[in-house]
């Protein structure tokens, strides 16, 4: 699997490109997840978001997630692209595409991917609200990661 299946990019993401990477004559099912910048979170209005990544490691971690999925759901193909930089409301931050011969694994593997992204991929989001800005991090007070990998995370944009 070419490594451009797992990319951090600065330009807008075209969902179709990511879907094409996983198309397969023996896939009966393709699921995609498109994470977009949401305007309202409760009463709070987001003006824009800024994403930063530790790019080479982030791409490695995305690739690792793809490998974990192939191991758990044989026959799947996975492609993930995450955008960084300044994103406006409704812009696409991440696209995850999973193809599989059968639909159940395509859903499960896709959801697994977004959960793992929020755990282990070194990407950070700064929210710009009307009245301030903040880097968003773990809201669950994980003081340490004894397994060497963060296990959980929360408070993110599509939670």
């Amino acid at each position: 699997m070419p490594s451009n299946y797992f990319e951090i990019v600065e330009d807008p993401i075209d969902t179709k490109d990511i879907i094409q990477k996983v198309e397969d004559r023996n896939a009966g099912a393709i699921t995609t997840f498109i994470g977009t910048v949401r305007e309202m979170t409760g009463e709070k209005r987001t003006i824009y978001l800024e994403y930063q990544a530790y790019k080479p490691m982030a791409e490695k971690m995305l690739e690792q997630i793809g490998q974990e999925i192939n191991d758990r759901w044989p026959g799947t193909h996975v492609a993930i692209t995450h955008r960084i930089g300044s994103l406006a409301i409704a812009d696409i931050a991440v696209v995850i595409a999973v193809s599989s011969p059968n639909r159940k694994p395509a859903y499960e593997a896709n959801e697994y991917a977004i959960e793992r992204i929020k755990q282990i991929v070194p990407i950070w989001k700064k929210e710009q609200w009307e009245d301030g800005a903040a880097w968003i991090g773990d809201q669950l007070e994980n003081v340490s990661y004894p397994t060497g990998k963060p296990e959980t995370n929360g408070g993110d944009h599509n939670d």
Partner: protein
Amino acid sequence: MIKVLLFAQLQEEAQTDVIEIDFQEGTVTELKKILQSQFDFSQLSESMFAINEAYALEHDVVKSGDTVAVIPPVSGG
């Protein structure tokens, strides 16, 4: 010498995205103490460390020439 990469909140607090530290060999825990003594980071205790682009444990060894990244809680997706 090691390079220490900073991101997000830590980068803003240090006002730089990379610091060079004269560090020969020691554990992540030891490096963390040095960083905490030199900078007033708010998030160091909840941050992960990576050595040469792989997550490291507290007792893993950092050697001169390594690139270490301090990884505060991530928020991608």
